[in-house]
């Protein structure tokens, strides 16, 4: 079982900060142009959201695991509702590596695995070093090719 790079916590915290700040800007605009909001509520809300985000990031990193098993990619995640997902290699349609702007800034990458299913048709493994992401993508591609079915649908 492999866990995510510790810096992924920073990534998650940063995304929470960005989201909370967007909400803060909206609150500011509402305050400016519509209903007046007390400043303590806005600032307090921002702080609470960010703190929650930090707690969530730490817990999520502690729980997140993934593993390339014999027949399937296995993921374990979820802070509140704990989910484990098995993605059989036979069912992998294609694999992407992606790097968003925040990810690039802190030097991480994600791998996205696509299946033809309805729920969880795209499964993301975040918080990987770029080399590891590329390697994982190639591993998954090879595993998917080895176990190629007649029709992945």
């Amino acid at each position, binding site marked *: 079982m492999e866990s995510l790079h510790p810096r992924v916590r920073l990534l998650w915290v940063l995304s929470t900060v960005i989201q909370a700040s967007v909400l803060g800007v909206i609150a500011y605009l509402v305050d400016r142009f519509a209903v007046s909001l007390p400043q303590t509520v806005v600032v307090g809300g921002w702080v609470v959201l960010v703190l929650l985000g930090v707690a969530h990031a730490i817990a999520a990193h502690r729980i997140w695991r993934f593993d390339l098993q014999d027949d399937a990619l296995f993921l374990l995640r979820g802070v509140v509702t704990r989910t484990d997902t098995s993605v059989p290699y036979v069912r992998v349609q294609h694999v992407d590596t992606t790097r968003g702007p925040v990810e690039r800034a802190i030097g991480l990458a994600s791998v996205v695995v696509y*299946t033809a*299913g309805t729920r969880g048709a795209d499964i993301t493994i975040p918080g990987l070093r770029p080399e590891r992401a590329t390697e994982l993508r190639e591993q998954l591609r090879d595993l998917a090719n080895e176990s190629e079915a007649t029709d992945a*649908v």
Partner: protein
Amino acid sequence: MNRLHPRSAVLSVARAALQGGFFGFFGGSVGTGMLGLPAFAVPLLGLLGALTFGGYALARYFRFRYELDGDTLTVESGVFARQSRQIPLGRVQNLDVEQNILNRLLGLAIVRFETAGGSATEATLDAVDEAEVKRLRNYVRTHDRDEAAESAAETAGAVSGTATSGRSAHADLPGVTGPTPAHTGDAQTANDFEDSASASDTEPRDQPDGSLLFAFDQRELLTYALVSVRPAAPVLTLASLPLGMDVVWAVLRFNATLVGASLNGPVIRWLASSPESTRLAVFAAISLVQFLLLALVVSVALTVIEYYGFRLTQADGDLRYERGLLRRYSGNIPLEKVQTVTIRENVLMRRFGYATLAVETAGYSGGNQQSTQGVAVPLAPREEVYELARDIEPFGDLDFDRPPKRARRRYLARFSLAAAGLTAVAYAVDSLVLETGYWWLAALLFLPVVPAAHFRWRHRGFDLDDSVLATRSGFWRRTTRIVPYYRLQTVFVTRSPFQRRRDLATVGADTASSSSLLGGVARVYDIDEDTAKELRDTLRDRLTAHVAGLRTGDRGDADA
């Protein structure tokens, strides 16, 4: 390359011109009102709009071409941004045909090709004539069978020329139109096979209608409409009540006279004048019953319109359905593309031993307008439904394992919490706003808690058959899903905090079916954590085993 039928051009140009005309007219009216344009601008802009829109529709008609050739459907379209799309016929999941009233009068039909993936229908031919529909349908169907026959021929070790000769005879087909030449083409293909590959057992080739599996007569249709209550009907009825406000008022006034009150003037005044509460209750009860009856009538009418003349036939590897009173729908579902089979029974149906059968393919994308897509048999005796389900996807007798008893305690706790919450709300509303002192009536909600928990528990379960996973859930509308192991996509196990407390977990088996209604996921709710892990591993193992089995069965021999 073929064009769509000329009559459809007339139709779409007329439609577009009308739209453009309205648009221009409306724009002109606004313009004269607000910008002070002269009055003659209104008809002028209307004409301009009609010409522009109509012209664009005409251009679109002339740019739209399609062709069936060999293994592919090619569609070229677009006036400004041009698009050329090729769809391998082997990837076509469904072929659906829709005819609205206007189309039926003109003898036209809209044909849709659905493949897996993508966010919309892959190709829509709007519209072609009925002979062309038949040709397209036959072409796609025989193509599928040729594929199968080809691999069979290869397996039998026949000369490799078979495949190509079968193909080339087939490639002549798109040039000819109408059912009769297509028929000869078919026969020729069949002959080719008999000549060169006697080993392949060619099935009878022309069965335009196939064997009838199921059809509604009027009485069955009405029964179905009555027992399959649509949850959306009351909402729809309520939403359309304002359209007949006069009638609604008349009925309400009549109800008022029934209870000996008069309803002159606004209802609010009558309610505010606080009549005896029994009268008010009777009045409300009568009105509610009337409303529910109306909703039932609406529900029945909708179902009858949707399923009028329902027929399900099977022609070699395909299920074919037809239905609809105003709009006729028909379509082909290749059996080999069926992902999951679902059997639904609501309380009424269970009481009378009926069930509904639905099949899902990966064809439809989310948000398809056909709400009841995939319904293969709307209503039939349960045994027949199971028999047909076994025809589609063979499975043995199902023996469902229920969740452990502590799951029932979980439901009990959950429903009690809900009842307590509602009672609290009732208390708050009553003490703050209404002040009737009857808030404790809400506590009656605790009465159904125990049976509700029991029934929810009783109707949940799963069974691991030799070749399928079967899951079951729901009391009011019990849904039994049959998922063949080789159709599984991902398997996931989830545990909410409440489930973790009782060491329970839910196992989800995802498939590629894309019905937005059913969600594509078969769920086994609230089983023991260890059982869940075991189930997950079993599903994974069987998926691998069955996919491997398929490959050695089909491809492996062909490769050898």
